[in-house]
């Protein structure tokens, strides 16, 4: 009990109900047998009571009207929504948004291009070799194959 007796900080926390259950019981037990600590506690309670009993005031008659005038003034001077985006507080958010937009556009545009097929890759890698064949060199003849067959049938 030595650390309790005369410990005003502890009594203050006791008064505020801020002690754990064990400590609270210890202090309660001590108070029962210690007149000086009871007197100290009563003085702390009396100081609190003086604060609570100090004259409370009613807000003045004009309090509310003045407040709503300030709100109206605030609303009048509030910039439109689009302008608020240009205010310093929003600039980092805008920068992040713009960057994200640019990246997104780039990804969409890149997605439109078809990737070359395996066949295209093989042809491009061997284009010189392929052009050595007569068949390939005169491949345009094949485009008129239908016309050639029709002429053959007539003859």
């Amino acid at each position, binding site marked *: 009990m030595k650390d309790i007796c005369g410990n*005003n*900080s502890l009594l*203050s*926390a006791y008064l*505020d109900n*801020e002690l754990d259950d064990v400590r609270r019981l210890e202090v309660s037990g001590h108070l029962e047998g210690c007149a000086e600590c009871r007197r100290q506690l009563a*003085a*702390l309670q*009396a*100081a*609190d009571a*003086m*604060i*609570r009993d*100090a*004259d*409370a*005031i*009613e*807000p*003045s008659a004009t*309090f*509310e009207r*003045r*407040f709503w005038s*300030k*709100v109206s003034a*605030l609303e009048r001077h509030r910039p439109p929504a689009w302008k608020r985006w240009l205010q310093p507080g929003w600039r980092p958010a805008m920068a992040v948004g713009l960057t994200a937009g640019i990246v997104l556009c780039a990804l969409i545009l890149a997605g439109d291009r078809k990737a070359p097929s395996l066949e295209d890759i093989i042809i491009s890698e061997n284009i010189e070799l392929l052009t050595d064949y007569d068949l390939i060199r005169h491949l345009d003849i094949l485009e008129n194959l239908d016309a050639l067959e029709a002429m053959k049938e007539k003859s």
Partner: protein
Amino acid sequence: MLAFKAGNERAFHDLFDKYKKQVVNYCYRFCGHREVAEELAQEAFLRIYRAAPRYRPKARFRTWLFKIAANVCLNEIRRPVYRHQLESLDQLPERDSGRAGPDIELADAERQRMVRLAIRELPDKQRAALLLRVEGEFSYKEIAAQIGRSANHVKTLIHRGRLALRQKLALYLGE
């Protein structure tokens, strides 16, 4: 507050009506001057109004409201415009007359004035913490969040505030 954030203007009127007296009195006990207290309380409500779009309920609304009120008191009271007004302090509030004899009224008024002065002479943080505890009935943890200190520091602030008040008001406390 969430209703107001969602666009219900009436909800803010209700909050204002519900808490205006509590906030005005917190500010009044903090600074001891009616006009200044009303200005501070209005500033606190204006900050709440402006902050509504960003409001996220992390604690009770009342805890948040008094956090703003306490910070307005701590910061704004240093402004020259308020300092001048506070220097001409000591006006007494109107009280119900006819309740008691003139001597008793006078003694009571004097006691009230001394209590106000004693509170006002406490260091700012002690005063803010003690009033949040006694007037607002907030826990040490809540006060810690409100004034940006640890709960242990709040415990010390409140204890020292009470001791200082006891000394200043010893005459009235019968010590």
